[in-house]
């Protein structure tokens, strides 16, 4: 049995509407002498009705009805009678035979029928107890269940309505089946002629002028468009670009941070980090075993650095702790890009023509000897800015932080005194995070110590302010990422790389 072609159904629908004005029940449509009353037929009808409705030629309503079919158990009862009648049948009339015991009953009708049938027959008062067994209590019971099932089997429903069908459903004798059909009326643009609708404007239509007479199919504006097929930049590096732009807006020169390996001299000593500082211990810093050691820096500068650590100078008492050349010769993976800033400040002091005020920044990878987990990676990006000029004040640093972080959407800042071996004063920058309802630390900042700057040869009146933060943290907050490994490293989800929204730092966090 094949369903009818859409064209023939369409013609039938339109002609029936034209003749009768409406179609109350689509199952009554007749094609080639056959009613379209199967679910498949109605599915085909639905397709046609949708198409006609989209052209506003008709309107239709969906009507859902329910019919019932017998379950396997229901069919058995329909054929053999209900369990209770089967039980009744095998029992003797009282006094006309030996009462049947439970065990015997199970043998006679089977355990399943016996159990259900006995209890229902007893409830109906068809049977009664007689000694250790059962006997009949009525002469001719009417098997209502079997009668109901018979009617349902024939008509798909019962005249008794829900009270009957619900009970039978509960007994798992019948199951409902949903039927869908449609009632159809004429639409505003009803016609027995169907006009071909266009889906898109084509070059041919433009050329031929056919577009003037064309009608266009309704467009589903609720659907999404076709995905674009371009590539994507990594979200973290998009945040990097945001920061770069902020730095450029503020007149900063980018420092050449293309140097992963530093000597401990530049990474620590030159920055006035004492040789006994815990950060220099093996467990925190990646030391390099091949190549073995760094070449010597400018010997005069080296001597000035040694002296400030060991003996003091430039108004400082120094650390007065042993200072070893070997310690400074060790090669490390830079633990901070401040090592590069330090080298750049040294160059600034020793450039041709002498010191000139400068603003410099960098954003690049730094390394810490960590075992990776959700919050730790051995590599992350440090954002760093320095401003070197005569007569810089702590008030300048604070104002600068306000200005800089306002551009990243942080408008409410406060500053906490902190300790850092190479800056004094040192300030932790806190920002009010509306989403978290909390002050969160967003950066560290300070004015570099004279013990770091003066041995470089920077003039005494020059002060250098600096601040640093990681790139990952604002990115993680921005994108609500809780596992850093999904952001940096080979475990990055490339699908997310494509789908992350653009960064607009100035808008702040949600």
């Amino acid at each position, binding site marked *: 049995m094949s369903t009818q072609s859409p064209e023939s159904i369409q013609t039938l629908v339109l002609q029936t509407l034209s003749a009768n004005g409406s179609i109350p029940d689509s199952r009554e449509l007749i094609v080639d002498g056959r009613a379209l009353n199967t679910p498949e037929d109605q599915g085909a009808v639905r397709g046609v009705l949708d198409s006609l409705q989209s052209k506003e030629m008709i309107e239709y309503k969906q009507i859902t009805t329910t019919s019932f079919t017998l379950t396997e158990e229901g069919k058995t009862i329909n054929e053999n009678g209900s369990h209770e009648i089967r039980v009744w049948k095998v029992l003797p009339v009282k006094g006309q035979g030996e009462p049947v015991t439970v065990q015997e009953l199970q043998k006679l009708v089977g355990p399943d029928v016996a159990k259900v049938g006995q209890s229902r027959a007893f409830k109906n008062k068809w049977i009664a107890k007689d000694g250790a067994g059962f006997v009949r209590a009525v002469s001719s019971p009417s098997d209502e269940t079997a009668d109901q099932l018979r009617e349902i089997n024939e008509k798909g429903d019962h005249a008794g309505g829900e009270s009957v069908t619900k009970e039978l459903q509960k007994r798992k004798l019948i199951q409902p089946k949903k039927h869908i059909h449609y009632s159809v009326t004429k639409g505003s643009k009803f016609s027995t002629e169907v006009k071909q609708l266009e889906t898109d404007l084509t070059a041919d239509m433009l050329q031929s002028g056919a577009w003037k007479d064309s009608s266009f199919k309704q467009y589903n504006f609720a659907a999404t468009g076709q995905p674009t097929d371009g590539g994507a930049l990594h979200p973290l590096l998009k945040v990097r670009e945001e920061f770069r732009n902020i730095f450029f807006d503020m*007149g900063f020169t980018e420092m*050449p941070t293309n140097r992963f390996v530093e000597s401990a001299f530049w990474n620590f000593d030159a920055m006035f980090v004492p040789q006994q500082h815990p950060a220099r211990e093996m467990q925190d810093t990646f030391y390099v075993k091949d190549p073995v050691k760094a070449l010597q820096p400018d010997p005069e500068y080296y001597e000035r650095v040694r002296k400030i650590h060991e003996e003091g100078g430039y108004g400082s008492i120094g650390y007065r702790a042993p200072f070893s050349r070997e310690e400074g010769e060790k090669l490390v993976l830079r633990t901070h890009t401040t090592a590069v800033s330090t080298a750049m400040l040294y160059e600034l002091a020793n450039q041709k023509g002498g010191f000139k005020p400068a603003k410099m920044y960098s954003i690049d990878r730094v390394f*810490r000897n960590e075992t990776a987990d*959700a919050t730790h990676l051995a590599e992350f990006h440090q954002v760093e800015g320095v401003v070197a000029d005569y007569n810089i004040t702590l008030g300048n640093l604070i104002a600068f932080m306000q200005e800089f972080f306002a551009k990243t959407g942080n408008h409410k800042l406060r500053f906490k005194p902190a300790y850092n071996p190479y800056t004094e004063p*040192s300030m932790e920058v806190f920002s009010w995070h509306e989403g978290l309802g909390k002050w969160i630390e967003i950066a560290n900042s300070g004015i570099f110590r004279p013990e770091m700057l003066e041995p470089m040869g920077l003039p005494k009146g020059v002060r250098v302010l600096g601040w640093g933060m990681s790139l990952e943290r604002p990115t993680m907050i921005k994108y609500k990422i809780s596992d850093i490994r999904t952001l940096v*490293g080979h475990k990055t989800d490339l699908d997310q790389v494509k789908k992350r929204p653009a960064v607009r730092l100035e808008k702040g966090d949600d």
Partner: protein
Amino acid sequence: MRPQVVRATRLVGRRFNSSSSSSSSSSSSPLNNPNVQKAVEGAQKAYNQTAATVKKVAGPLGERVGSALGGYREPLVYNSKVVASVAKQVWQAEKLSPPLDTAVWARAYSQIWSRASNLGYWRDLLKTGAWAGLGVAPTITVDKDELYRRLEREYTTHEFDELCFDFGVELDEDTTKDVEEARAKGLPTPPPQLKIEIPANRYDLLCLEGLARSLRIFLQKEQPPTYTLSVPDKLQEVYVEASTSPLRPYFASAILRLSRPMNQLEYESFIDLQDKLHQNLCRQRKFVAIGTHDLDTIEGPFRYMCKDPKKIKFAPLNKDQEYTAEELMGVYETDRHLGRYLNIIRDAPAYPIIYDSKDRVLSMPPIINSQHSKIIAGKTKNIFIDTTATDKTKLDIVINMISTMFAEYTEIPFTIEPVKIIMPDGSSHLSPPLAPRPTTASSSYINAATGLTHTREEICTLLTRMSLTASPSTSDADALDVQVPPTRPDILHECDIMEDAAIAYGFNNLPQSMPTTNTVAKAFPVNRLGDLIRKECAMAGWIEALPLILCSHDENFAWLNRPDPGHYAIHLANPKSLEYQVVRTSLLPGMLKTVRENKALALPMKIFECSDVAIQDPKSERQSKNYRRLCAVYMDKKSGFEVTHGLLDRVMQVLGVPFLEKRESSGKYGYYIASSEDPTYLPGRAASVYYRPKPNVQPTEPTPSGPSSEGPLSTIASTLKSALPSSAEEGIPWSRDIIIGSLGILHPTVLNNFELTRPCSSLEIDVEPLL
């Protein structure tokens, strides 16, 4: 520093707690809870067994600590703080018993992290619990009521947090709420505590006495005290013998004659300060070690010497039996607290030891005190402090800290009895070196650096609030005479004094103004070029990956079918993980790992990266050089060689580099590819990328393929080369061509090494020659 739990164990087995800390005293301590004890032991055991595992597991709690250079803290610290707090909250909230083994730790953390992705959950946590203090700075725990009593004021948590913020310490946690909840349920609980993070250079704030004193001065409730040495009828003497050099030659001492024996709270604070100093400034007793004794059990003069370990014999703290020093090394070998200090002296021929006049041992620094001289809380009235050191500066700081912090309990407050130290050369001096350090500070400098316009007197008032005694100089109209007390060894320079003035004034009150520095922005050319290329790649439909720079040696070499030419890659000395053995010399391994982790992505997969590799460079000071490279990998059912090749063409097109077709082309400038033999690629499907620079332009060197040969042979070769007539002049067009990279279909063995089952093609080129 270690994870918190591990740190807690130190309380149990501290070396120099010369006491029989009466057991009732710490009944309130969580350490007496057998479950906590078990947990602590479990964590410690696991730590010893598999340090790496626990570091990973307990990482957020402790691993960061101490590494962040005191400043510029990255998100990891932030997150570790959050996690630590979260961990605690979860355990408390869910009434979980503390974890007993590593597996439980691991599970707990993963649980916590799965919750942590929910913003609301964070917010709730952050509202209720302060962040656990595990930054670089040490965290101290003080009794809240006692601190507020000393500050003569009750603070709300918020108010006290603000005070801490202004002063430059950080309130990590106020346990009041937890304690109240526990009390409401009738559970035994210690009194409310405050956990406060102290800057790493402020040893004078590491105990309740010092913190309270400094805050009182800050709040102008008292003037900075003057610490003085008493003049006893008879000085105690310590003879330092020559045998202590060079192992541990420095010695300092002090005597505290208390007005009454310390109570339990004070005594615990006294022990805790020693512990904090040992762990921080003393670097696990390596630089300095502290011993404290009941002076009434010993008699001077004392002798500090080094002696044959076989001939040292005494009963160490908490043991009744006597051992030789040699035997003690065995006894403490497996001791998880003292074991780690043994290597400071183990291999020395003679061990440091301190005797009294009756040959009774006081202590064997830096390992253990004697049982005989131990301090008993509630009983000991006169305390003798010994400190031994390898570093004179730190020794002075330590003896001053221990004696000044507790000097408020002496008969005459802030008066310390000196000890005469007689050095091997016969010279002698009094210890501790309490005298304030006189220095000067320029008021105009302080005003200029802070942006203030204060008079000298006003600045002096500010400095007094920071425990510095200052007065306008009478000889110099600009100068301030500043007395740096023995409690403030962090003051190295005028700038430290300037900072103190700024803190007292309030950072957030300072007049703000933008610096007037007028500069023009400039990009680093390599980054500018890199960004241009990155954007073109993305526009061409490729997705940017961001793999790590560190990788394993195999990933970098063997897995790419490349030999290690030696002295080429940068090898790490101490990685915690085998994943990090070398700095990559190629971008390819990271890209292939990224492909491996993203197999579920729809094909074709097209990824790229433009970033640095590093190669050894014997000529440069840091012995290494970075090279900016571009790498792209294509994966599909077919290798897509032509697609990858197309990306190369596109990049060159955008950079205006003409295509030369082949080597023999007469073009003066451009690029071409030519077949090559490269085991990374499928034979016959490998090509080198050649670049012909513009005439008279010396391009930036591309990544070298092997170690740079500095030998005499290469010098001769290059000399010869430069002496010979240039081949370019002879009309060979390719004489100046350089190889800047390669492309090809990846060899199936390479694919297999990276667990890839679909064909891939790749491209990797240097971009700096294209500058």
